């Protein structure tokens, strides 16, 4: 099947070569591309196309039906599922609001924390390296593990948080049992979980800043804040946009953490889009679940796009 370009050289002909005693080497000019190279990405492309892209496109097809996942019969219902999700399903809109609240909180807190930690640990001293390793550690745990740890911490009767607070005479409340606060406590867990990861990204950015700039600024009499504004921040801005984007997508998903900490299915106060989609799927409403998942994708895209606009508007720029 491979379509070979003719061996008639399209590139530069070799210069001093007599046809008689030139070695019969299949000379490929540096600008010619070996067509066999096209076979290299083929397995990856096939796998991604068949198992990733196609099902995603398929989701669009499911979304306009009312299929329940096992019968042979189903109907095409047009945009009904989408309309239902936004107008007739307060569990869905609740999950949507929760998700947005959660993402906003986590992005702000995690970006701030990781930046602060990175600023404090930029130098490569022994202590800094040790602390960096420690702060990064939670990221490698599975989210179910983190969920269990924090479930215990938040237990109002025997858990860590209230045990500690009780020694100073304070009752921290029900934490996850308090519907008005529950989501915020899970946000705290998420920030604990991943701040170390983002800290590393910031450190990479910060370590690229040449020391001389700071020294020069010192000599000019700039104070720490001015140094931060004019030297650090411009270098850190690209890292920030990465951290914000990555954290957004990561916290949008947060599926594993919520299931581990709130159970399956989670109560309304802790329900987010990914868990709502899963509940709908487990309830045998495949068509509706697919519609919800498309809305989910659109939400992520929208929020990510909005962020990039917002961050570009800040004067520091890239």
């Amino acid at each position, binding site marked *: 099947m491979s379509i070979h370009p003719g061996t008639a050289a399209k590139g530069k002909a070799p210069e001093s070569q007599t046809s008689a005693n030139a070695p019969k080497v299949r000379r490929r000019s540096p600008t010619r591309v070996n067509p066999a190279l096209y076979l290299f990405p083929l397995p990856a492309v096939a796998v991604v*196309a068949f198992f990733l892209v196609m099902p995603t496109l398929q989701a669009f097809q499911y979304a306009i039906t009312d299929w329940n996942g*096992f*019968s042979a019969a*189903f109907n095409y219902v047009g945009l009904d599922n989408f309309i239902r999700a936004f107008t007739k399903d307060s569990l869905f809109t609740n999950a949507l609001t929760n998700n947005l609240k959660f993402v906003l909180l986590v992005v702000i807190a995690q970006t701030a924390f990781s930046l602060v930690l990175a600023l404090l640990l930029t130098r490569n001293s022994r202590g800094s390296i040790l602390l960096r390793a420690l702060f990064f550690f939670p990221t490698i745990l599975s989210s179910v593990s983190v969920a269990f740890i924090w479930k215990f911490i938040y*237990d*109002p009767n025997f858990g860590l948080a209230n045990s500690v607070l009780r020694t100073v005479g304070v009752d921290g*409340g*029900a934490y996850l*049992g308090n519907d008005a606060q529950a989501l915020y406590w899970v946000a705290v867990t998420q920030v604990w979980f991943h701040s170390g990861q983002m800290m590393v990204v910031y450190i990479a950015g910060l370590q690229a800043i040449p020391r001389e700039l700071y020294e020069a600024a010192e000599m000019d009499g700039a104070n720490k804040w001015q140094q931060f504004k004019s030297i650090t921040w411009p270098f850190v801005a690209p890292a920030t946009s990465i951290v914000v984007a990555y954290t957004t997508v990561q916290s949008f998903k947060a599926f594993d953490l919520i299931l581990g900490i709130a159970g399956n299915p989670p109560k309304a106060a802790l329900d987010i889009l990914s868990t709502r989609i899963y509940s709908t799927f487990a*309830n045998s409403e495949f068509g509706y679940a697919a519609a919800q998942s498309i809305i989910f994708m659109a939400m992520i895209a929208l929020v990510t796009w909005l962020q990039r606009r917002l961050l570009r508007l800040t004067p520091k720029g890239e």
Partner: protein
Amino acid sequence: MSQISRRQAVALLGAMGFGAAAAACAGPGGSTKPGGATGPAAPSTGAVTGRVSFAHWRGEDKAVFDELIKRFAAQHNGVEVAQDISTSNDYNAQALQKLRGGSIGDAFATFRGAQFKNFTEAGIYTELKDSKAVGNYQKGLLSAGRNGDSQLGLPYQVVFPMPMANVDLFDKAGAEIAPKNWDAFLGMCEKLASAGVIPISWPGGDVGNGGQLFNCMIANNAPVDDMCAQIEQGKLKCTDDWFIKMLNQYKDLKPFVQPNATGTAVEPAQNLFSQGKAAMLATGSYHIAAVRGLGAKFPIDLVFPNTTSDGNGKYEGAYNATFILGVNSASKNQAAAAAWIDFLSEPENAGYYANQTAQHVSVDKVEYTNPDLKRLSPWLQKKTALAARFQFQNLDVRNAVEASATAVISGTSPEQAAAAAQKIVDERL
């Protein structure tokens, strides 16, 4: 350039053809089990041998079942029973998909209510009304497994989703363990509170267990027995007077549950009870073994929160017949699976299960040697309501309705909580 465009064209054609094939591959539409159309048939007969997969959710009973399996295998040559256990939440959510293929769950158990109905509609059950087993059960306790004229499943366990009571603490406080009406119940709580214990330990942070109290609270308040089914169908509403009255009674309980009850998980709630810090544990008799395992040595009885004002309620308690045994119509080894069910249904084996796991069974003529079971066996004769929360088919609806009670304990007004729950129900009608 022309080569590249030729390549592109080939790629494009490939993609289109591929896309068409793919659409055929994963488009919606499946195959319903043919069994569903013609009605359940009796399990096929044959030699009792080979591998039987027994699917259920009670990990805590695994060791006891293992022993019973040994005895079963001794009776039949070459038979092997393997337990396939998931947690109850997982089982509730996923068992249908898992069993449909027939590779696990030759014999299986289901929850009452929604799961039983789903399985029935999907044609998973076989007809057991002519089986050897069915005659061993107490007639009145078979309804949970019945569909029309067919006996599709055999409800094995009888549990009482009523608060357990620490009899010693009650005696010490001079509190009445069988209050005749709601005021008496509240009076009993006050006596316990003044004796320095938490009257009720309630695991509000756990939906499955925290909701058991609901069965008791709604039993005498509702105008009909299938009130939950009717709520789900829209014939009754959460905003009706009787429901709001029940929510107000939940509000009455607020001072008597432990602090931060809505965040309390099961183990901590059990611990409060087993350590003698709380006089009652508002879950059910299925927790007796767990509580004993945590070190509780005191005698345990059950208390019914009598919600009536005059003591003339229809019911004096609540029970649930669950762990409905069935034989999978998609199984390749139905004869052996049916034999396993028959074996479990014999009084001697059912008795072993009951006494070892501290649960009552619906099998007749069982001798209870476990002291806790013995003490509670009078409840088997009382007029108890079949636990209503299992009438809900839609999990979202059930969670919303039960959440109204939790919200009231958190401090929301009953009217508001009822309206919020009814909104979710309305959306799903």
